[in-house]
């Protein structure tokens, strides 16, 4: 049984935001418009955080792409009264829209702020809807949504591998953010396989986990940016 994880090399990440739009395009994430966005209702399953350090002219910036960390000990899961948020055998933090009744407890519990609530039925001015990905559910009003590690791509690769009577190859599965990343800062793969690229990177001495001390056991490893001045 695989255990899916990701590594983000912050020494490669340029903060361009390509992952943000790639995610919108892949996962049928609707735009909410200026008014709703100003109320904090914009949905970005992945975001690029930016931190300034120091004062002009000695300013430094750090970027950090943040998506659902797919915690092994996820705070969002035990608080869900309907088990909409639960853990799968391959380590994904599943969000089952059918079960979700919109209590938003999970969003409150999540220390990473990566869960988003559909305050409205999403809408697409036609013909923008022709772009919608048929492999991904359209969420309606009243449910939580979040990064799935592009589970539709995982399933598709697994089905393809099984049809070819082989194992899923390392690097074969690329979530949309990983595939589009211009500087190849994001790597996805099986953490159970010690030879996989993501395992190799996760063992890096530069590797850290986000808010690891909370005990959430996140599966996204961040490789710190090298400081050389």
């Amino acid at each position, binding site marked *: 049984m695989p255990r899916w994880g990701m590594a983000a090399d912050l020494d490669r990440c340029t903060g361009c935001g390509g992952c943000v739009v790639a995610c919108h395009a892949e996962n049928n994430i609707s735009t909410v418009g*200026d008014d709703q966005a100003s109320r904090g209702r914009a949905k970005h399953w992945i975001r690029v955080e930016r931190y300034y350090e120091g004062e002009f002219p000695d300013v430094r910036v750090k970027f950090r792409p943040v998506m659902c960390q797919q915690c092994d000990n996820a705070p969002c899961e035990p608080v869900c009264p309907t088990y909409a948020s639960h853990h799968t055998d391959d380590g994904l933090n599943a969000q089952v829209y059918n079960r979700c009744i919109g209590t938003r407890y999970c969003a409150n519990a999540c220390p990473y702020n990566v869960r988003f609530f559909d305050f409205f039925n999403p809408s697409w001015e036609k013909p923008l809807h022709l772009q919608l990905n048929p492999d991904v559910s359209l969420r309606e009003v009243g449910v939580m949504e979040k990064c799935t590690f592009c589970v539709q791509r995982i399933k598709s690769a697994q089905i393809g591998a099984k049809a070819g009577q082989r194992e899923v190859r390392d690097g074969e599965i690329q979530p949309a953010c990983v595939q589009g990343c211009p500087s*190849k800062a994001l790597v996805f793969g099986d953490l159970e396989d010690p030879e996989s690229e993501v395992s190799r990177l996760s063992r890096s001495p530069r590797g850290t986990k986000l808010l690891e001390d909370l005990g959430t056991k996140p599966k996204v490893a961040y490789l710190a940016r090298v400081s050389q001045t």
Partner: protein
Amino acid sequence: MDRRSFIKLTAITGSTAALTACGNPEHQLIRFVPDEDIVPGQAVWKPGVCPLCSAGCGLTVRVMDADADVVVDGQAGVKRIAAAKKLEGLPDHPVNRGALCPRGQAAIQVTYHPDRITQPLKRTGNRGTGQYEAISWDDAVVELVGRLDMLAGAGNQRMLAMLTRRTSGHRGALLEQFAARFGAPAPVVYELFGDEVLRRANAMSYGRAQLPTFDLANSRYVLNFGSDLLGTWNSPVAHSRAYGEMRQGRPGVRGTFVQVETRMSQTGANADEWVAIRPGTEGALALGIAQVIGGKHPDYTPDAVQKLTGVDARRVERLARGFEATRPAVAIVGGAPLAHTNGLFTALAVNTLNSLVGSVGQPGGVFFTPQLNRAAASNAGGGFTLQDIGNAHVLLVDGANPVFTAPAAWRVRESLEKVPYIVSVGSFLDETSALADLILPDHSFLETWSESLPESGSLAAVAGVAPAVMRPLHRTRATGDVLLDVGRRLATPVNLPWQTFDEMLAATFTGLPSAAPDVDTWSDAQTKGMWTGTLPAGLASGASPQTPAAAGAAAFAAPQFDGDPGQYPFHFLPYPSSKFLDGSLAHLPWLQEMPDPLTSGMWSSWVEINPATMQKLGIAEGDVVEVASAHGTVRSAAVVNPGIAPDTVAMPVGQGHTSFTRFASGRGENPVTLLAPVTEATTGALAWAATRVRVSRAGPADGRLVMFAGGLREHVEHER
């Protein structure tokens, strides 16, 4: 009773009446026979070329079935079509190697935009009011042919003007050829953030009037003067890919990256060392570094450079030593440093650094992508410029939007209003197209041949081409084909050697060298989405790059700024937005809602100010501030930026459209309206970083600033 049956019961008791009338309206719709056989639910991948900037990245497009709303003979219904679903980078393309920037990811929304112009339109109301009536393609073409015949009949062929943006491919060449054969001058090419200064400098330094390509993946020291090479400049995806390799792609070697600029850009945010500098003095710093290394610029000692640039003398020395010692090293310049009156000097000064460390044409250094040699069109001389285009009798607008992107002082709008007849081939009613008398909407890039001849971003020559990915959604026509058709129908026909645009492409690609003897390059390129390889001498243009003379640069001339420093104490920096470039992408909702990399701003405009300056002026984040130059005034929200000089304020370009679809119109402010008509002294290119402004608080937050990172949200909510 379990939950399910409980709810079922309530539903039944509550709504028996309603249920009888139920019916899904989808099933009453008329369905039309699809135009092609499409296997439902199965994705096929087709190549494409990204049209959004001149980098020319290759695409692979996921295509699946979808039910489109269509109207056939006045009857509304649905039709199963093969629809593009997702754009990915073309894996083997030498420019982008499978990756895409955020804008490229959003390009698909161009095709599906709800405000796309769906058919030919003829103006009915006053110019700029957006009043148009539908017109058939036949009538539209006849009308254009009539106008051109009138010109030719009166011997006024020279009065046909064309206005385009810079594209890297055959489209521009076709316009040029058409104009030449008609007897008209060459098209006017206008880009707000054009790179004409750098091309001129490279022609002087290297003998190549071309944007450079950098082998960053093999560099160990990158010294970048102001260019946003990882965000918006030149070939950002190619740079980003190589940047990742420079940092972590070589075991045990990590390249150093130094950025010199006035406002920390997204690129600067990634630098190991960020060097703040006075605007317009980057060339002096470059020569200072050259002096430390080579000693041939005695006027630019570190102390002298410190006085000019504000960069500490010891730092100048240290940067020079690092640049000299850490080979391969490369110096890069682009963007704001060249948008000053002394831009050409700055570019030449930085070019000398590359010769000093021998990085021209060497691994880890500067290259020039081999360019395909094309027969130059012999256009009538004395062409138009943007300033006198109002004298034209007929104007054809292809993609350029100078009404939005040219400084108000150039009075482009007033000038265009004088032109008796304007034709636009645009897909959207932007500020310039809104002045058109006739609109002949082009297909989207996914609906017709897409192509590019990248000027940079690849060490090997590359040409991208792909046939249509999907059928046209609307009653649009490929502009290349329309132009060739119009040419044939003229009283004195303009006979170009091609019947259709793809014949023009075929002529180019068939002539390219084949990878294997039995491979037809034209069909092979269409399947792969590109051709790449070695250009034989006969096909390549330009000399091989020369190493610039180390002492070649002229003397530093202080940059001139518009506006009295007493009255206008701040430098004003309008910069290309990571989301919208020069504003031509503000109509895409994904990009509007994408948080800006540095401010996290969405759907809005803002003014970036140093925190110390804000404190001095009594401005809090979110407050409305007034920014005024001698040429205009805008009011927008203030945003704290610790990475901007205290005497500089910056605004991203892109918002402030008055007419550009429902997503961009009436949103935010256009900083270009503030710009002075100052030009670079030698090339005449707009010096867009040479305007001074004054800044004052105009009022409290008005709620128009939207940021993903929050902070402001509760405050505005409270005031509602």
